[in-house]
């Protein structure tokens, strides 16, 4: 039950642990979390394991080097699957796939990209690039001269309709941030990069 998974986030300290792991560029250890949040290692482990049991985090093991070599260290990262709770039930994803099918079949990509550009300029609001990207759910991080985007807010429908959805996504960001955006896909995350100011 998704509500039960989300309920484990109700505890503020555990939510802080989740947010720290979700924001990290690479899987993190119990020690990393304990240090970052200024809590004990056992408490960090307790929160991490509760989050993993709830399916919000996934775990892996990394071989240590140094004095404790040989004992694998448990690492945590955000689980890739989506959790959503909508009351009353809503199914925008189904409708998004239907729209994407229709756009592809009719060849209406130019109209879609124009609409996305307009929507982007409406959504941009106040603030600098990083703030706007964060507010829109892209989870930006600086990488040399560009912002890379750790999260694709449209991931589900981007997988079923990559051409039109990534195109609409690029147009939306163009509307929000101007022409300094381009497609540069990586194995994970959003396919767009943004030149830094």
């Amino acid at each position: 039950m998704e509500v039960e998974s989300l309920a484990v986030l109700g505890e503020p300290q555990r939510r802080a642990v989740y947010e720290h792991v979700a924001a990290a560029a690479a899987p993190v250890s119990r020690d990393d979390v304990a240090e970052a949040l200024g809590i004990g290692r056992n408490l960090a482990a307790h929160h991490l394991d509760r989050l993993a049991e709830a399916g919000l985090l996934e775990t892996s093991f990394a071989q240590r080097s140094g004095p404790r070599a040989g004992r694998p260290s448990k690492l945590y990262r955000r689980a890739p699957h989506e959790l959503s709770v909508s009351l009353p039930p809503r199914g925008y994803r189904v409708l998004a796939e239907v729209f994407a099918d229709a756009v592809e079949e009719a060849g209406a990509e130019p109209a879609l990209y124009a609409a996305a550009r307009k929507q982007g300029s409406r959504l941009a609001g106040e603030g600098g690039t990083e703030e706007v990207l964060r507010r829109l759910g892209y989870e930006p991080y600086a990488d040399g001269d560009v912002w890379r985007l750790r999260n694709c807010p449209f991931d589900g429908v981007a997988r079923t309709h990559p051409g039109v959805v990534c195109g609409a996504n690029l147009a939306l960001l163009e509307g929000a941030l101007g022409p300094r955006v381009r497609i540069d896909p990586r194995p994970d995350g959003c396919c767009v990069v943004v030149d830094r100011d």
Partner: protein
Amino acid sequence: MTSHLAQLNVGRMIAAKDDPRVAGFYGDLDRINAIADASPGFVWRLVDDSGADATSLRPFGPDVLVNLSVWESLDALREFAFRSPHLDVLRRRREWFEPFGDVYAVLWWVPAGHIPTTVEAGERLDLLRRAGATAGAFTFRDPFPAPVTAG
């Protein structure tokens, strides 16, 4: 026996090869094909007598371009198609290609080592159009696993 994944996609160009409206597509083709050829899991793609690409071949009509290739796995093809600079070509395809209805691409499994013909590929596209996604002709959206064979 190992299976490989064959893919066909077709598109009707909005203009002839020497028309400036499609120069952006043709100008980028060598780069994109080189990325495909160097991608992990790439096995083969159809080329014409030029040896570079298949743009002079018209098995499905005078203005219909054909892209026929073989990959080691669905994931290998997906990585190239959607997680490489090819994605940007896909995003922009309406600048160069007319809408082709709802069935313009098909996937099917072949025994490793088999090189599909355009006739075979056309039959798979027809099968998908007729029967929807089945083990013999399917799509990224409704994929089927590689057949399990003894030995």
